[in-house]
């Protein structure tokens, strides 16, 4: 996508400077500093569905907003280095732009258009950052994570109660869950493997994995309730 060329320094010397909104890049930069107001959602939709010139300008502004959102998301992540940030942000903004334009007809107006669009950039940036952080790392389903986790140390009735619950959960993981549920539970809840990373490695989706985790948690809660250990299914 072309955003237009920067004018050379001094190129307007002695000439009338064109209005700022004549250049799509200037409009994109303006969008950085001027967040959309609630009444602007309709304008966004009209421009993005408008004639080619109007649409191209709106797409350039939208891309700038998505890039800003992607950078915001990536700056929150210590695992993303300054050297990686810009490249990942551009990839995320480009993917988010495609998604936003493809789903334009699904925008229901339940939020501001910009809030709706930002979420695509944040999703894309977040997923890319999590996957980058785990690049080259093998996921080993390691149930040995339990002992350190389930040993709260000496002590108080509260820690003993927690310890008893953790032991009961561990037993229920072995006895109540299917193999698939156990693997997903151990990876996500115990080892804290990012769900997008596990989804990519397993060739599935975040939603499908979370459903498995949700079902596993319900079974564990039911098992604890049967033992009157204070969890409800």
């Amino acid at each position, binding site marked *: 996508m072309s955003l237009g060329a920067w004018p050379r320094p001094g190129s307007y010397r002695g000439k009338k400077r064109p209005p700022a909104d004549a250049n799509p890049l200037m409009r994109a930069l303006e969008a950085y500093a001027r967040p959309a107001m609630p009444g602007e959602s309709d304008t966004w939709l009209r421009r993005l569905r408008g004639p080619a010139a109007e649409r191209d300008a709106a797409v350039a502004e939208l891309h700038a907003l998505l890039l800003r959102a992607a950078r915001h998301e990536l700056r929150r992540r210590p695992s993303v280095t300054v050297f990686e940030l810009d490249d990942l942000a551009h990839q995320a903004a480009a993917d988010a732009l495609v998604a936003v334009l493809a789903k334009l007809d699904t925008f229901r107006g339940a939020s501001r258009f910009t809030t709706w669009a930002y979420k695509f950039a944040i999703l894309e940036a977040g997923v890319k950052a999590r996957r980058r952080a785990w690049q080259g790392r093998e996921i080993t389903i390691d149930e040995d994570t339990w002992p350190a986790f389930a040993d709260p140390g000496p002590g108080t009735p509260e820690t003993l109660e927690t310890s008893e*619950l953790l032991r009961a959960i561990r037993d229920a993981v072995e006895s109540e869950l299917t193999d698939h549920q156990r693997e997903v539970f151990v990876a996500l809840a115990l080892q804290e493997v990012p769900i997008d990373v596990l989804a990519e490695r397993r060739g599935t989706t975040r939603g499908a994995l979370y459903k498995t985790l949700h079902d596993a*948690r319900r079974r564990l809660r039911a098992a604890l309730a049967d033992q009157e250990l204070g969890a409800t299914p």
Partner: protein
Amino acid sequence: MSRELDRLLGPEGPEVSCEECFERLDEYVDAELAGHDPEQAVPGMAAHLDGCPACREEHESLRDLVAGEG
């Protein structure tokens, strides 16, 4: 209940799926920032955000981004 137990057992109440969470995240955040009850706008969202770290991160990021625009 400890943080570890929360992490293992997840939220107790009904919750939306990851797909519905993404679908309505913008509506939830705008309701939150407008001072309305976001849970009324999207029932089951708060429970899901408790139970799903990835969706929680994206919610916090979107909320902070939009809030920063004033």
